[in-house]
């Protein structure tokens, strides 16, 4: 037995050294990206510096993953810009309308994805804002502007990749291994408590489920980290899916004196062994025995509603700017697209806009100090590098804060500082341009916030309602996509519960209980289906057919009767027939419990 104690991280000025390392890496990468862009005389060095901010992720694998998606999304965005501008070159209003539709499509796609894939989807959307909208009066420059943006992004990616590699950005793999092992331990503890029938374990179950599903993006990122990354990623994914299966098995509490309890305990042990094997494969970088996918529940309705809202916000904002008739509002409009699109990747878009609005004056003041007091006409690169240090490092340190408000402010502050300063060679010190850009960002954020109050984003209540309806209809229809294992289907259901909790589901006790009951029933019904498949052609085939019919009707009484018939046919205790009987008894218990939850809901 090895005793472990929680390791206290080494801190400097009460901030962990890892955060300092991250902040210094961000600053160095920004300096390198700016230097290379100036040296290559690129048109948009700011894009290179902003790319560093976007790719400022704590581990190397995450930065690589996001970099790939950023490049891909930029290519899609630039292509869309050229297409939109080419189609409606003569009519500004149609360009804006087409862009609103494109933004809606991108937000729709983002809502169906997660992690960096969602980011890539919204980036394809707002890239059009930065290219087609900013060049709306100058359509011939769209291609050049797209190329300049692409070059800036490429320089940024290479810079952060170099800095991350040479200054030893931590790898995701050890962290992922430790996290999965800890989760395995906690799932075992949960299973032990459930077997002893200790009360009050529902919150533990939910937090474990949430943590496992939340690992999904990190598991995808680890694939790019090293030459054995794809193996690690496959093993970690299988381990996560197996953990959900074990957690589900632990939740199925049979009657301790009942006949199914022995079978349930065996099933739990088998699941535990699967997780253990996957973890061993993960540690030794070997392919796991089974390769499972980790599918995500996709709510098309919610995605469509979010997309329509984003398109509406942009359309109304552009109408407002056209009516206002201010000069150079295309820049402000592109910020509306940026904030609306990035907000779509957060759980609460309106709060994101509010933070952008709060962050703008802070960033303006800080940039003003940097540009007109510290630099004040300086034209040497080393001075720029040194002057940027406190701002870049400070914002990056804020980003690592555990407090959500501080970290969001850090996330907003760094890009706005870079945008307002817009480093160039030679640097221009123009107070008017400084004030204009600050004003444009502030106007964009306030306009968008006003629009989001007018047309609010999809509410948590609605999202929860749709998720619950999807769970109910899944339980009724039980259509499984071809070739999907039941463990994968259980992971999809788990991701639905996670989305439900993210939409504030913890407060909605009754709906949560129903969703969990659907989760249990689905898992058991799938298991029964799989077990009954073994009897398709044999003497027990008609009985299996009866069982399937009873499952389709969700009828506990006939399930029990059929289980009894199976048990009579069983030659010994651990035969397939006895397994099926135990499984059917458990299913009837869970279906009965589920209908109890259902009748409570109807009574309410």
């Amino acid at each position, binding site marked *: 037995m090895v005793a472990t104690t929680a390791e206290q991280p080494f801190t400097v000025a009460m901030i962990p050294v890892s955060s300092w390392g991250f902040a210094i890496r961000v600053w160095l990468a920004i300096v390198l990206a700016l230097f290379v862009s100036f040296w290559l005389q690129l048109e948009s060095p700011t894009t290179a510096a902003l790319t560093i901010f976007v790719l400022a992720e704590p581990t190397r694998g995450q930065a690589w993953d996001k970099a790939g998606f950023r490049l891909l999304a930029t290519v899609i965005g630039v292509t869309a810009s050229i297409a939109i501008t080419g189609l409606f070159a003569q009519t500004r209003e149609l360009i804006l309308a087409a862009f609103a539709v494109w933004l809606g499509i991108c937000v729709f796609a983002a809502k169906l994805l997660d992690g960096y894939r969602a980011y890539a989807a919204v980036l394809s959307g707002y890239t059009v804002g930065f290219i087609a909208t900013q060049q709306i009066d100058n359509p011939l420059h769209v291609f050049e502007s797209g190329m300049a943006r692409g070059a800036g992004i490429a320089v940024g990616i290479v810079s952060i990749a170099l800095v991350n*590699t040479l200054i*030893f950005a931590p790898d995701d793999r050890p962290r992922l291994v430790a996290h999965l092992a800890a989760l395995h331990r906690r799932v075992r503890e949960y299973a032990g408590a459930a077997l002893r029938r200790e009360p009050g374990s529902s919150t533990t179950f939910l937090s474990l489920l949430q943590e496992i599903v939340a690992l999904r993006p990190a598991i995808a990122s680890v694939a790019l980290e*090293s*030459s*054995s990354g794809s193996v690690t990623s496959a093993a970690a994914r299988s381990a996560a899916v197996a953990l959900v299966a074990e957690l589900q098995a632990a939740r199925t509490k049979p009657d301790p004196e009942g006949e199914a309890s022995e079978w349930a305990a065996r099933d739990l042990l088998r699941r535990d062994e699967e997780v253990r094997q996957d973890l061993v494969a993960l540690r030794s970088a070997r392919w796991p025995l089974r390769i499972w996918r980790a599918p995500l529940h996709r709510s098309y309705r919610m995605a469509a509603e979010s997309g329509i809202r984003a398109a509406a916000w942009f359309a109304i904002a552009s109408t407002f700017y056209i009516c206002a008739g201010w000069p150079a509002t295309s820049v402000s409009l592109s910020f509306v697209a940026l904030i609306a699109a990035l907000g779509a990747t957060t759980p609460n878009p309106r709060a994101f806009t509010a933070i952008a609005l709060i962050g703008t004056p802070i960033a303006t003041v800080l940039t003003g100090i940097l540009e007109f007091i510290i630099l004040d006409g300086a034209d040497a690169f080393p001075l720029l590098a040194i002057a940027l240090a406190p701002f870049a490092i400070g914002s990056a340190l804020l980003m690592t804060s555990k407090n959500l408000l501080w970290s969001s402010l850090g996330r907003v502050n760094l890009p706005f500082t870079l945008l307002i300063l817009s480093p160039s060679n030679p640097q221009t010190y123009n107070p008017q341009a400084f004030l204009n850009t600050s004003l444009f960002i502030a106007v964009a954020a306030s306009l968008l916030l006003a629009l989001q109050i007018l047309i609010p984003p999809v509410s948590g209540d609605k999202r929860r309602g749709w998720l619950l309806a999807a769970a109910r209809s899944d339980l009724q229809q039980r259509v499984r996509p071809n070739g999907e294992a039941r463990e994968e289907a259980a992971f999809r259901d788990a991701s639905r519960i996670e989305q439900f909790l993210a939409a504030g589901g913890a407060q909605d006790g009754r709906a949560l209980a129903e969703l969990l009951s659907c989760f249990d029933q689905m898992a058991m019904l799938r298991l029964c289906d799989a077990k009954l498949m073994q009897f398709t052609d044999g003497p027990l085939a008609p009985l299996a057919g009866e069982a399937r019919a009873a499952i389709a009707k969700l009828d506990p009484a006939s399930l029990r009767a059929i289980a009894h018939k199976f048990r009579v046919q069983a030659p010994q205790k651990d035969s397939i027939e006895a397994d099926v009987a135990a499984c059917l008894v458990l299913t009837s218990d869970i279906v009965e419990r589920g209908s109890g939850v259902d009748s409570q809901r109807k009574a309410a």
Partner: protein
Amino acid sequence: MAHAFSELIIGGVLLAPFVTYLVMTLVVIIVLRPLLHVVGFAKMFSHPSIAELSLCVAILGLLVLLF
């Protein structure tokens, strides 16, 4: 003897030869990755990430030199 670099032309847009080399390096690395995993490349070095970066630079240099 001077090395002649040819530009890649896609739809009338000239691409710098270096971009072609970078893309080729990426393709080579993607093809090599499973092989590196089988050989246990990551286990040979104390800092596998730097070793892999060096490998990329070496491949890029070779491509520029040979083609």
